């Protein structure tokens, strides 16, 4: 995975709350067996409306999306993250995220920054006029309007993002511990018998 430290550029002032994964990528586009190419279907329904935010020239390929509360709720489809990334979004700033969405984002090197609603309101008001920058090292969002907002982020996730770590590779370094767990669980009777298909 590509390491990320700073993401800067246009931020789409979207702001909508409870944006579910069906809005981000409708189910009919989940028939793909690949991770790429979903960008053109991202927010399909919203983008079919005249004069929508996403199709304005200045927002095309904007690396940051500003959204409302509970972003990415709904299904576990990682296609939502792939679609956003494929349309150019590298980071989402919102008051809160669904647990599954923020986990999926993280695993693809996409940054999710949680900031209070009042800060989001300020960002929404100023984003259209300039740029926004997210700095993982400084844990701060700065803007061309002169604002600076610090944010919290899970230390492990922050480190992984900044180092571009492959989580599976990392876990496989604990293979000895996994072997030991399986042996011990088997003994205690916790280890589940194999799944058998008749």
């Amino acid at each position: 995975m590509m390491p990320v430290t700073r993401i800067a550029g246009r931020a789409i002032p979207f702001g909508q709350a409870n944006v579910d994964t069906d809005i981000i990528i409708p189910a009919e586009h989940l028939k793909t067996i690949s991770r790429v190419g979903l960008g053109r279907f991202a927010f399909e329904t919203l983008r079919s409306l005249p004069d929508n935010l996403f199709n304005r020239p200045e927002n095309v390929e904007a690396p940051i999306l500003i959204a409302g509360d509970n972003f990415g709720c709904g299904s576990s489809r990682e296609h939502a993250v792939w679609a956003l990334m494929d349309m150019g979004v590298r980071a989402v700033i919102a008051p809160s995220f669904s647990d599954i969405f923020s986990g999926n984002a993280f695993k693809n090197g996409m940054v999710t920054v949680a900031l209070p609603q009042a800060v989001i309101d300020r960002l929404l008001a100023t984003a259209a006029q300039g740029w926004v920058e997210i700095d993982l090292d400084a844990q701060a969002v700065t803007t061309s309007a002169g604002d600076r907002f610090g944010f919290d982020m899970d230390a492990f996730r922050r480190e992984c993002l900044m180092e571009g770590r492959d989580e599976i590779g990392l876990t496989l370094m604990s293979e000895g511990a996994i072997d030991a767990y399986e042996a011990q669980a088997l003994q205690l009777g916790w280890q589940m018998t194999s799944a058998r298909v008749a």
Partner: protein
Amino acid sequence: MTPRTLYQKIWDAHVVERRPDGTCLLYIDRHLVHEVTSPQAFEGLRMAGRRVRRPDLTLAVPDHNVPTTPRVRPDGSRMPIADPASAEQLATLERNVAAFGIPFINDRAAAQGIVHVVGPEQGFTLPGTTLVCGDSHTAAHGALGALAFGIGTSEVEHVLATQTLLLKPSRTMEVRVDGDLGPGVTPKDVVLAIIGRLGAAGGTGHVIEYRGSTFDAMSVEGRLTVANMSIEAGARSGLFAPDEKTIAYVAGRPMAPTGAAWERMAAWWRTLHTDEGATFDASIVLDAADIAPTVTWGTSLDDVVPITGRVPDPDSFAEPARREAARKAIAYMGLEPGMPMTAVPVKNIFIGSCTNSRIEDLRAAAAVLSGRRVHDRIRQALVVPGSGLVKRQAEAEGLDRVFTAAGFEWREPGCSMCLGMNPDKVPAGERCASTSNRNFVGRQGPGARTHLLSPAMAAAAAVTGRITDVRELAA
């Protein structure tokens, strides 16, 4: 020993490694795989030259994308799938399970069905296990006392490669409901009422444990309906402590342990309950007597109202954001503020999905439909059993004939109109009374309008052609 919650007990039993910041490498006992969220995970394994660590703890079943029309011809040969992208996704799953040696129930097998129906039915889902699947409604398996949650495709790959996940413990939430449910009130109504109270994000970061006499009295199938929708309140998992009913439910299922292993595990399952004195981070309490048959009016799961209620006035909400959302939802749904819910006409009926497609659900709907016909206004009424075994059981009981006599289509198992991925869709602008679990914009097809309700209520709506209080139809 410090008292622990059920969640903590299952968690502690699965910790492989604990990191200083509290993150744990957690062992995963059970992994369900389907065609939609797995292709990129297998591709990732291939690219990195990795194997599947424990194929024997994995089970693959296609469900989301399979057509619900017949899959085999009378001569036994396979019907081709019309949509090339769907066909390719199913073929990819078949190739992947063969290449990686994963147990597989194919789309023609009698045991095929929706992953969350198949898991418990086969005894693949067991109390006290950790169970994951690349699907958010995996929470359902918590009904049996499994710590079960939905994961994304990267995590699917992680579990395939390592049989573990790296996780931070969740906060715990108790949802307590006591008392008897009134006539016509079902587990679906209970969970819709709970989400109405909690809000669509009220459970975020939490694992819910359902407690109280209402749940004690509920069947395992009813508990599956409740646990299934935990995610709609934002909670990744919902748990029920296994009791004698759970153990009896699991006993004798094809993949359940037997003999000495069974005895040992059942003994452990009996210790899996929240200890006296253990505390939850949050708690809500509802009284079963206050719960009416419940329906959704909007496009978020907290847009719920008792059947006796009305479409709300957006101005009645305190928060500006909620007001705006309600206004949008009412416009999308084509409703008027103040309209009684029972005045809302429907054209489509869907009885199915991993929330409500088990035998008890079909019995409840058939009981309402028996001797009745769907209303002239209904354009399509579908019953999609959750699995081939549910379908056979229903046919043995004659339920299929009740449905078809009433004017319903009796289909092959799958996700179907729950998510509008296969050809079963609600046309744009049309309204559907649906027993599924999501009323999102475009969920059942672009522009589709969804009202969620119980199987009995869906049957009642079919008969009258509008959203109906099933209690008025009582025979």
